[in-house]
């Protein structure tokens, strides 16, 4: 099966029908037909979980990345676009690995993953970033019925020519449902905060850059890739209106936004 997020296809190879079925369900909106350009990720399923409680570690270079956490071990060659993973038959390990591979690939393709909800209204994408509890799921639930919800947790942002677009992702937060597999040019970015009243204020690009770097998902410590992500984020903020958005949990907030 090929899972394609933000135009980055990953061919997940497994010979376990039960695991395949689980992935089909989890990534149902993002499965595409064969694509010879896809990254190949071979899954070796283990019978028993590793009991070591290891934090995520991403190390390596342009030729080979090693990505490991207590529940999985993976290597990935970005030049050959091939990788493998050893894990038990659970969705969380492969989900984490897909995010990491995407963050590495997006960095080289003028994009990044952002801790943010996003939705398309009237063919324009609106991004809402914030830490856990800031209101990403809440504002997603309040979106107009006509909106396409891209994600309530992790947004995929990528430059296409002179325009930055947001893509849907299957990476869900409390909504526990994959986003729509569509994209649109980004109209605005909001830094979210719950408040008793709705209030919106413009943020300077410098302030926005300071804040957004804390919310970008990037796991590798490769200085060259970190510089690329930083540059892409700065270019994004130079082209995008950015606001601080304090909101109370009712649908009127969407009148203020769109």
């Amino acid at each position, binding site marked *: 099966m090929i899972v394609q997020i933000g135009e980055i296809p990953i061919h997940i190879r497994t010979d376990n029908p039960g695991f395949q079925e689980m992935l089909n369900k989890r990534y149902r909106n993002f499965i595409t037909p064969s694509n010879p350009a896809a990254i190949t990720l071979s899954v070796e399923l283990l019978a028993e979980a590793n009991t070591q409680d290891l934090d995520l570690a991403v190390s390596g270079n342009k030729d080979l990345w090693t990505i490991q956490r207590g529940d999985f071990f993976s290597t990935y060659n970005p030049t050959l676009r091939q990788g493998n993973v050893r894990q038990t038959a659970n969705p969380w390990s492969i989900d984490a690995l897909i995010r990491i591979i995407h963050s590495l690939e997006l960095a080289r393709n003028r994009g990044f993953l952002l801790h943010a909800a996003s939705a398309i209204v009237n063919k324009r994408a609106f991004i809402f970033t914030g830490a856990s509890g800031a209101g990403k799921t809440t504002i997603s639930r309040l979106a107009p019925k006509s909106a396409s919800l891209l994600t309530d947790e992790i947004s995929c942002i990528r430059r296409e020519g002179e325009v930055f677009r947001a893509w849907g992702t299957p990476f869900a937060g409390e909504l526990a449902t994959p986003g729509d597999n569509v994209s649109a040019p980004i109209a605005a970015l909001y830094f979210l905060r719950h408040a008793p009243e709705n209030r919106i204020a413009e943020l300077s690009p*410098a302030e926005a*850059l*300071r804040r957004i*770097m804390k919310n970008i998902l990037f796991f590798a*410590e490769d200085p060259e890739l*970190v*510089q690329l992500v*930083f540059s892409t984020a*700065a270019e994004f903020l*130079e082209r995008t209106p950015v606001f601080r958005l304090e909101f109370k949990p009712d649908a009127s907030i969407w009148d203020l936004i769109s």
Partner: protein
Amino acid sequence: MTFPLRAPNLASRVLHGEAIVMNPADSGLFSLNETATAIWLAADGQTPLRTIVESHICPDYEVAFEQALADAEELARDLAQHAILLLLPEPRPNPCP
């Protein structure tokens, strides 16, 4: 005499006159105000700090040279402590003679 030089391998961007500098080694972020940005941008390792103050700070800000230099020296030491500025005792050799 001190010759400030922007540390190599940093990511930086000037947005609306303010530099944001990131050290990719540890993802540490630094925000520089307008005067600090002016010094940072002029820190080529060949221009003495006092010349930077004379030509980039004093003309744009109503401040006495001695005070501006003292502030700039303190700032330069602070940036050097965070490894985003190098303070050279001699000018860096010109790479393009």
